[in-house]
């Protein structure tokens, strides 16, 4: 049972990355690969600041700011230098690898003995349950903020930017600026996942971000499958589904490990699982 509790906790930690990918991919229609770098950036900023005994109220905004800067940089390269979004993301991700190593000082820093977000409040003596409560409150807060943002005039303009650029420019929106802000928000959220995972797992590692984009993509695709199937238009429901997608994704991985699949094959299983959720609805609709 503890096994699935850990998966639930991981899923909640990955909510940030799932929301981030939802914003970049679904709302802005931009395939953003900065994710791998900004996720690790969130982790290493957390690790470096914790080892330097910085207080938690500084670490959190620092992580958000670092992620936002990385995203804004990708956005800037994409919109102002007119470089393909995919390439812009890869460039920033590659550069971040060196930056992350510089910030952390070495490739891996253990954080187990340090006080962190999860030791902030002790509601129960069970460490995992305590983490779950804190995370749940954290994720509910993030979901409410994003949900509210998407309902505002600014949020509607954001959604229109990814949907009909010509229209929204004619309605007075600087779409370049909007994309830069959007990618900044997306990567700030991604960095937040790195921040949570580093504290939850008790270490920061510069390679923690490798291939992590698939976690976000998988979560969003699970959500999208349900959104398209039920023709959901509500912003709130979509966000809850993305969150559920992140948790389901971790459950599938936990289940895979629990039935004895070699952990080395986990990335392969992940890729096949995402392929299945993307592919099956298409095959099914072709038959119908």
């Amino acid at each position, binding site marked *: 049972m503890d096994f699935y509790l850990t998966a639930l906790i991981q899923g909640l930690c990955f909510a940030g990355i799932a929301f981030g990918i939802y914003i970049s991919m679904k709302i802005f229609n931009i395939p953003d690969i900065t994710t791998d770098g900004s996720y690790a950036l969130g982790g290493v900023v957390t690790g470096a600041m914790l080892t330097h005994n910085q207080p938690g109220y500084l670490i959190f905004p620092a992580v958000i700011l670092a992620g936002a800067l990385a995203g804004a940089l990708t956005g800037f390269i994409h919109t102002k230098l007119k470089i393909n979004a995919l390439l812009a993301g890869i460039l920033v991700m590659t550069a971040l690898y060196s930056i992350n190593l510089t910030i952390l000082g070495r490739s891996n820093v253990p954080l187990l003995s340090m006080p962190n977000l999860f030791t902030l409040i002790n509601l129960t003596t069970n460490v995992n349950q305590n983490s779950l409560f804190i995370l749940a409150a954290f994720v509910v807060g993030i979901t409410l903020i994003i949900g*509210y943002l998407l309902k*505002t005039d600014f949020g*509607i*303009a954001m959604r*229109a930017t990814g*949907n*009909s650029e010509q229209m929204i420019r*004619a309605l*007075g*929106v600087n779409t370049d600026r909007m994309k830069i802000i959007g990618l900044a928000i997306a990567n700030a959220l991604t960095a937040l996942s790195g921040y949570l995972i580093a504290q939850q797992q008790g270490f920061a590692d510069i390679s923690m971000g490798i291939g992590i984009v698939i976690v976000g993509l998988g979560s969003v695709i699970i959500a999208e499958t349900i959104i398209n199937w039920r023709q959901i238009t509500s912003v709130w429901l979509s966000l809850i589904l993305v969150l559920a997608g992140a948790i389901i994704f971790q459950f599938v991985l936990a289940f895979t490990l629990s039935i004895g699949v070699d952990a080395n094959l986990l990335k392969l299983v992940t890729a096949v699982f995402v392929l299945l959720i993307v592919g099956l609805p298409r095959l099914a609709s072709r038959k119908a």
Partner: protein
Amino acid sequence: MIEIKGITQTFNTGKTNQVTAIDNVSLNIEQDEFVVIVGANGSGKTTLLNLIAGNLSPNKGTIVIEGNDVTRLPEYSRSKWIARIFQNPLSGTAGDLSIIDNFRLAAIRTKPKGLFIGKDAAFSKLVKEQIATLNMGLEDKIEQPIGTLSGGQRQALTLLMSVMDECKILLLDEPTAALDPKSAANVMGIANNLIKEYKLTAILVTHNLKDAVNYGSRVIQMGEGAVLKDIIGPEKQQLKQSELFDWFG
């Protein structure tokens, strides 16, 4: 209202396929004027419209709107004067967004898009009342994605959206080209009514010579990037469709 002085727009400058789409055009459009622009494909009509709207910046010349030099202003900054209707009904609306979301954005065309929720009950009521004037039965579907509507319905809503916020200039780029004849007539009727009701300065680019005769207070024929004919006032009102046909002979 709009003063265009000696503008030239060249595409692919210096390459073998260089085209001068607009060649030293000067034009004055007065307030409340409804200008219809006709001309063959490649005559520069749409380029002229894009230059006024700001998607393109001319190589030479200036564009002044209400005394403000807007020549180098990007499209999103000119939206405080200009509303646009595109040829493709999909371009003027965001299909995945609901009707009311589209109207909300249109209602703040000239204003900043802030971090508060402007889509309240009062706004819904206003949008419903506005949409009801179209008699299309869409007022009960405002939460529906606008992409589920037909091209004619979307084009009619786009027209209505343009007057949701203060609008001085309405640019219509072949707004009915993608519509069936009945929807086209309906959309042109709505456009004409709105232009009169809100006293808009309007520019319509069209291939439909019947519309060019029936609507507008001034008709301009373009060819090879220049103004060939410019007919205004009583002369425009007396213009017959057959005469227009002869222009293209």
